[in-house]
């Protein structure tokens, strides 16, 4: 289906990433947002608060991030598309509710505009050190999706993707932005509503007496019911059976948790989003994401100009990690260079996937600014030797 025109600000704009992300939520059909102020993410909901009263929907500033991250889930079960926005410390507070959304298969979007950490860290400066937290931050085994935009245009485009994927797979989706992408201003083209594909929520067509809320379809994703329509369904964060009833048996736990991960398998490889360049002849592949990918782009150009066969692999879906694609590349390249604004997070996934077939060279940075392209270039040169 196409986007509801009411939320779509068609045209060519000059927007920062936070504002573009907000326009993405509106175009995607989000009509409910709950937030709590935190730098450098707040502009997303500030714009939403200003836009939504003339579109039709709700913004509420909650008392903390715990509240914001579960208010959106109440809204989702009442029928809305909903999201929240935060940064490092607030993202930490939201972890329990990311787990709840994963367990109850509640489609919703969490935007994390990453800043330097740990703790209060560098509130106004960039980091990319929440990548592992996005994947593993809540307790227990579960799967999520994480997308990494590297421009305001992508903040718009990928936010729509984030909502679509969350509806398709019924998982919480993380928009892993960073302070640079959130605050950089560039041209953003917002298409006509009929050019924007929207994934509608899949509601059950069964009558209430036949509906079982956690009976998966063939794609392992169950259909939803909407509150207030007589389905009288039950949702719990406890381990539950297909009826949604708590069930503490080992078999139910195994069946449920394995499905929560397995339903994301199609995304892990075939459908993972990435941007690649010059992989055909590459000796060295730079794997990067978010703002760092733009610095890496320069380093790759410099390397090419020196005759080094460097290629680009930009992660757009960071999670599920496209391990098969990296594994396949590892068989034919010398090395991977992995720059990121942390002391080594996604590089661990690259190492795991490369499994010793190619060298993996981290280019770590504690955050606060971006890499110097020369630092990445030096690593490429070293790797190509």
């Amino acid at each position, binding site marked *: 289906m196409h986007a509801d025109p009411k939320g779509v600000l068609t045209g060519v704009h000059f927007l920062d990433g936070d504002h573009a992300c907000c326009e993405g939520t509106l175009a995607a059909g989000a009509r409910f947002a*709950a937030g709590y102020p935190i730098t450098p993410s707040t502009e997303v909901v500030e714009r939403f608060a200003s836009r939504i009263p003339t579109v039709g929907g709700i913004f509420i500033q909650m*008392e903390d991030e715990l509240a914001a991250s579960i208010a959106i889930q109440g809204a989702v079960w009442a029928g809305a598309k909903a999201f929240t926005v935060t940064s490092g410390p607030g993202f930490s507070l939201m972890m329990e509710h990311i787990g709840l959304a994963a367990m109850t298969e509640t489609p919703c979007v969490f935007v994390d505009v990453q800043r330097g950490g740990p703790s209060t860290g560098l509130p106004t400066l960039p980091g990319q050190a929440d990548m592992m937290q996005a994947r593993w931050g809540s307790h227990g085994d579960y799967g999520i999706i994480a997308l990494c935009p590297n421009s305001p245009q992508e903040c718009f485009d990928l936010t729509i993707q984030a909502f679509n994927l969350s509806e398709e797979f019924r998982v919480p989706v993380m928009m892993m932005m960073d302070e640079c992408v959130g605050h950089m201003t560039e041209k953003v083209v917002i298409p006509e509503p009929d050019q924007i594909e929207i994934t509608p929520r899949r509601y059950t067509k069964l009558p209430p007496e036949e509906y079982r809320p956690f009976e998966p379809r063939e794609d392992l994703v169950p259909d939803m019911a909407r509150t207030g329509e007589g389905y009288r369904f039950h949702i719990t964060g406890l381990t539950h059976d297909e009826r949604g009833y708590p069930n503490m048996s080992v078999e139910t736990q195994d069946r449920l948790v394995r499905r929560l991960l397995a339903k994301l398998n199609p995304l892990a490889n075939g459908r993972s989003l990435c941007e690649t360049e010059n992989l055909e002849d590459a000796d060295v592949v730079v794997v990067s994401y978010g703002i760092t990918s733009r610095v890496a782009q320069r380093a790759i150009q410099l390397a090419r100009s020196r005759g080094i066969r460097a290629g680009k692999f930009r992660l757009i879906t960071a999670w599920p990690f496209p391990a098969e694609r990296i594994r396949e590349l590892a068989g034919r390249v010398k090395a991977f260079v992995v720059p990121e604004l942390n002391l080594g997070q996604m590089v661990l996934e690259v190492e795991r996937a490369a499994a010793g077939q190619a060298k993996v060279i981290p280019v770590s940075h504690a955050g606060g600014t971006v890499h110097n392209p020369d630092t990445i270039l030096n690593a490429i040169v070293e790797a190509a030797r």
Partner: protein
Amino acid sequence: MTPTTLEIPDGAQNPVEPFLRMDRMPHIWCPGCGIGTTVNCFTRALLDSKVNLDKVAIVSGIGCTGRVAGYARLDSFHTTHGRAIPFATGMKLANPELQVVVYSGDGDLFAIGGNHFIHAARRNMDLKVICVNNMTYAMTGGQSSSTTPAHVISATAPYGAFEPTFNLVALAEAAGASYVARWTTYHVKQLSRSMEEVLHKKGFCFIEVLSPCPTLYQRRNKMGDGLDAMKYYKQASKIRNGAPTGECTLSKSGEIVVGKFVDRDRPDYLELLRAQMTEALGERYVESEASCSC
């Protein structure tokens, strides 16, 4: 053993059963626990209020009372510890047609969830909050809660509790609730009537129900069983409707002031929102269609 009853007409049914997920019975609550009694009152309130049950959603947090949502044959949500109120807030705002009831315990609503409670009351969010207060964390083994009275022995106060407690009804009133009442599980008729009243009242409504916990709270304190607690409620309660909530503090074995303390009309969150947006935006304001976006 056959039921010892006389002349039961064909088709006679416990009025509570249509409201419960009978395929989940027996429930997990202990002998003499009062939570089931509050559920009886709630179901009779639902019946008497004639609300459309399809439009009632019940939201619980974690704990013994947190299990109520799982037994109620309504759209029912068993959320995380302390966060039933913000979940309910999102649900209510996304679909204002729903009657959203929060049903949880004292530990859940007032310790881990205390901040959400006061803010929802401040906003006068149109939620009906029922707190079963057994003065302890029962599900986890009888630890102290923010309502455990002084001198009570708990799993985490082995030499006796000494922290000052929250007076829940005073807290609710001060935070802005439109309706505040307290009953005990002895007061089934009054409790049921209060629950029926709040189903017809707009705004943030709060009912505290004192309830026995024989297994954990009472056993450690040699306070007998559930029936002993019920007899204590009967003997120690004074009905004082309209009593100043500040005077309604509770103690280990003293007087229990019960009644409806607050019943006032204040614009609720959505009314305030609509008024402000209409004032600021005039005809440009579009009423929320949050629940219709897909």
